[in-house]
């Protein structure tokens, strides 16, 4: 009797959970769309708060980074209010669909699958490539030297996805792929000797190596990729507005000014709009 009651209660709990999950998926597009009357609207930018130099917590305790600065300039231009939302990067699509933010704008790689899912993507603004960072004294000179080694990567980043797809063959030669939930942990693992190399976005590697001694970035480029801003499906109009404002910023030099900030390192070399 007691057991049957337990089973019944558990079944109810299960059904309740399922219902909540379904409900969460179903309420697309009610909150964020409300402020669509451009003037004075609040623009919620979803960022990975640990992704320098694109988006990160600055020394003054406020979010900063290239993407954040550009977004701020865009909002100034359009008279919008900027709000920053910290994404859980692994769940960014779910959070975007959930209207927790208006866009994902945080050095996000444009993937075919993202387009296929129906998300609206801006034109790519950054050409990124994956590089390997190793310790200076490791003796590792190319990806070929990584056979039997442990390689770190941030879960859900393009490096991680590449290792499962285009770089699967290379990944097969590794002893293991160690997935962490932030770049800081990847680098700590590398520094602490738990992994032999970290597969990481080139600008992230560059800015880290610039601040910390003893790291070397291998010249080899492992897969190129481009960054764009991701909006919900149906938000083409919002995307166009933002892109238009960015082009104005490029034209008036504000964009270049932001890119030249010292703390953003070599980012300027990979910005597509500044190379045209």
């Amino acid at each position: 009797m007691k057991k049957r009651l337990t089973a019944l209660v558990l079944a109810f709990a299960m059904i309740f959970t399922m219902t909540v999950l379904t409900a969460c998926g179903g309420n697309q597009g009610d909150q964020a769309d409300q402020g669509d009357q451009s003037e004075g609207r609040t623009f919620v930018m979803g960022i990975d708060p640990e992704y320098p130099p694109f988006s990160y917590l600055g020394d003054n305790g406020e979010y900063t980074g290239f993407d954040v600065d550009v977004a701020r300039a865009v909002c100034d231009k359009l008279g919008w209010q900027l709000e920053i939302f910290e994404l859980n990067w692994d769940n960014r699509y779910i959070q975007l669909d959930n209207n927790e933010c208006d866009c994902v704008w945080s050095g996000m790689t444009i993937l075919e699958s993202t387009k296929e899912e129906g998300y609206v993507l801006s034109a790519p603004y950054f050409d990124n490539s994956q590089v390997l960072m190793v310790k200076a004294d490791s003796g590792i000179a190319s990806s070929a030297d990584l056979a039997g080694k442990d390689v770190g990567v941030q879960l859900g980043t393009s490096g991680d996805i590449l290792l499962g797809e285009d770089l699967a063959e290379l990944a097969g030669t590794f002893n293991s792929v160690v997935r962490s939930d932030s770049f800081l942990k990847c680098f700590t693992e590398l520094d602490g000797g738990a992994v032999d190399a970290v597969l990481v976005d080139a600008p992230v590697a560059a800015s880290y190596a610039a601040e910390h001694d003893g790291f070397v970035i291998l010249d080899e480029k492992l897969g190129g990729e481009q960054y764009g801003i991701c909006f919900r499906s149906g938000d083409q109009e919002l995307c166009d507005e933002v892109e238009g404002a960015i082009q104005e910023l490029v034209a008036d030099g504000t964009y270049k000014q932001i890119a030249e900030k010292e703390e953003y390192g070599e980012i300027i070399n990979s910005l597509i709009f500044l190379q045209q």
Partner: protein
Amino acid sequence: MSLWTMIVSMAEGLERTCAIFFLTLIFSLPLGMCVALLRMSKNKVVANATRFVISVLRGTPLMLQLLAVTYGPYYLFGIGVARNKLIPVVIAFAINYAAYFAEIYRGGIESIPLGQYEAANVLGYTKTQTFIRIILPQVVKRIMPSVTNEVVTLVKDTSLAFTVSYQEMFTIGKQIANSQTSFMPFVVAGVFYFVFNAIVDYGMGRIENRLDYYN
């Protein structure tokens, strides 16, 4: 990716989840008893120091303790980060759970009437005999429901191992969710945890029943 492939790859991570689960129990259950005895020590300094440690362990997130155990030695002393993450993960889990078990044990031990100690004392049992033959069996019966609670929590807590890049079942689920832009792996993970806990519940229920021969 088919649902079946998804389940198979996540099941591989289940092995690591089980490793955390069983190793944590193996170490924390006895360690908790040692901590409980220190906590009840007649030496005030020892008792208070233990009490403080327990309150730190219970008052800070397990996630933070995992980070501290895994990366702390490196940041503080430059000792390398362990390649096999199972070691720091089990250390952190075992210490954390020992603190919880210690408080459960203490509650159980303190709930045994003084008369039991006195009866054993008069009959000539040594302190160790009294504890092992008379007190402990009664404590075990009394604390079973609370222990079951903790064990169920432990099943779910194993997913925290991801914080220090240990790839257990939930991490693999996240990874698949990410590359497939699908919510399905989370549902699969939910079912896995549920089934795991159903088994744990059944096992603990059996033990409780076996202890039910007296009131």
